[in-house]
């Protein structure tokens, strides 16, 4: 009894993990080498056809490029979040209020965020009105309808939504640096920039590198905001929207699986690279 006991305790978690993570990944790899509509009892072997199509077809290659908008946006997000985390880590009036306001968007429902920004970007909507008010009226355009700018609008919405998360993570890391270090530095004549450069920056290196990983995998798997706001129209189809359409609208399970496998490999590769380049001092499990 005692011998089997630990397995009994782990079993529910392990069974769920295998059923909903490992089996799907395994199946997905299997599907990716076949042509299948998801219903038929037999799958047609397709060799590498699906992969060739994902990597060479113009339509599929485009979605990788769309990720770049989101990737760029996540770097903007990291910089903005870092700036506010640093200035709010020094004494500031209404600090908790500002912290709350900056963080709040992260907690909001994605569909609600999508609607808030659909409203904002409408022709003659809030953004246009504000621009006219500022005397920039000639810059108004179809923020979501014009393929040249639609991805920027969507990526901007992502920045609005996720900056709060990076900000709170950075702020937490900065505040975990003991206060005496700043005091000692001040006595030694260090100014704010020196403090940032030599105390704050090394203290939050780990969390910044983690944010970079989240930024890359997040921008490759961008889905909610573009799906809710434009449904992938006007040149805003992202990787996951494309995979969703292939799988659930065109019933090309093999092709969609190949896309997912490629995405998964990229994410794993980047994570592995990060672990190699910036070894984590605090790996502590078991």
């Amino acid at each position: 009894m005692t011998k089997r006991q630990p397995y009994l305790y782990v079993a529910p978690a392990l069974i769920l993990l295998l059923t909903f993570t490992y089996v799907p990944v395994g199946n997905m790899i299997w599907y990716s080498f076949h042509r299948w509509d998801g219903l038929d009892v037999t799958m047609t072997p397709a060799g590498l056809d699906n992969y060739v199509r994902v990597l060479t077809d113009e339509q599929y290659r485009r979605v990788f490029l769309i990720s770049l908008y989101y990737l760029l946006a996540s770097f903007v997000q990291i910089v903005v979040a870092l700036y506010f985390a640093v200035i709010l880590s020094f004494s500031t009036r209404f600090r908790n209020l500002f912290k709350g306001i900056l963080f709040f968007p992260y907690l909001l429902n994605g569909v609600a965020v999508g609607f808030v920004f659909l409203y904002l970007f409408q022709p003659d909507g809030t953004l246009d009105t504000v621009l006219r008010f500022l005397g920039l009226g000639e810059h108004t355009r179809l923020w979501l309808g014009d393929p040249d700018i639609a991805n920027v609008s969507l990526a901007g919405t992502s920045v609005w939504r996720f900056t709060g998360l990076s900000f709170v993570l950075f702020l937490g890391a900065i505040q975990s640096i003991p206060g005496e270090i700043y005091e000692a530095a001040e006595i030694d004549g260090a100014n704010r920039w020196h403090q940032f450069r030599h105390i704050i920056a090394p203290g939050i290196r780990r969390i910044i590198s983690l944010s970079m990983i989240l930024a890359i995998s997040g921008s490759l798997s961008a889905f909610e905001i573009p799906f809710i706001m434009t449904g992938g129209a006007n040149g805003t189809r992202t990787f996951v929207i494309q995979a969703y359409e292939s799988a659930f609208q065109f019933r090309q399970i093999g092709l969609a699986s190949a896309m997912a496998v490629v995405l998964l490999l990229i994410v794993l590769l980047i994570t592995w690279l990060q672990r190699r380049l910036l070894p984590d001092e605090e790996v502590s499990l078991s």
Partner: protein
Amino acid sequence: MRHVARLAKYASLVLASLVVLVPLVVVVFASFKTHAEYQATGPLTPPADWLNLDNFVTAWTAGDMLRGFLNTTVILIVSLAGTVAVGTLAAYAMSRFVFPFKRLILGLFLVASLVPGVTTQVATYQIVKSMGLVNTPWAAIVLFLGTDIIAIYIFLQFMQSIPPSLDQAAMVDGASRFTIYRRIILPLMKPAIATVVIIKGIAIYNEFYIPFLYLRSPDLNVISTALFRFKGPYGAQWETIAACTMIVILPTVVIFLLLQRFIYNGVTAGATK
């Protein structure tokens, strides 16, 4: 020089606050306007009558939001209870027993945390379908349970701070392993459980893809999908959509104001594990 720096600091904070708040405030404005008023006034004009709740009534009934909230609540409660039970049991076994394949199992959880959930849905869907769970609330519940690796981490880390001497003392007194889990470990895990409930609860309340994919029938609408489906038929009536959006956002505002400190800690713990 110091003054300029201070001014720039506060100016940037106020500007950022405006960027966050203005998009939300204009939606609040719109939600209180009548249709005629909405069309006649600009988005930055406050509503004439702050007590005009007609849009909220329309949104609540036409969007069947009550059902949305009920479905969300049921899924939320069952998933959270399940996550806590499954996660604490696993963490207890992992940190208090020595058994073969423990490192392998730990490794499986670690690697799985790297797999972004959205990518595997193509294949996960086939599995959920083969279990006959599509279009039942159980699809969402098992997926919220099964894809949660962060919770197990938080529990595991917290378990390490509970001194094993406590268990040993109880064992000397003749308590069974399960009694120890139930009577000693679980009560001590309360802070970790609170963290998991908060971050997981917010994530489930906000989840869109899973209910959108698996709960297709309108009877099973959760608040995300109820709001999303509102878009089509009411596409031209922004004042109603605005009200519906506010209905979805309001609970988040209340929870945030009440649980601020816990939310910051929970989010930090959840993201850095």
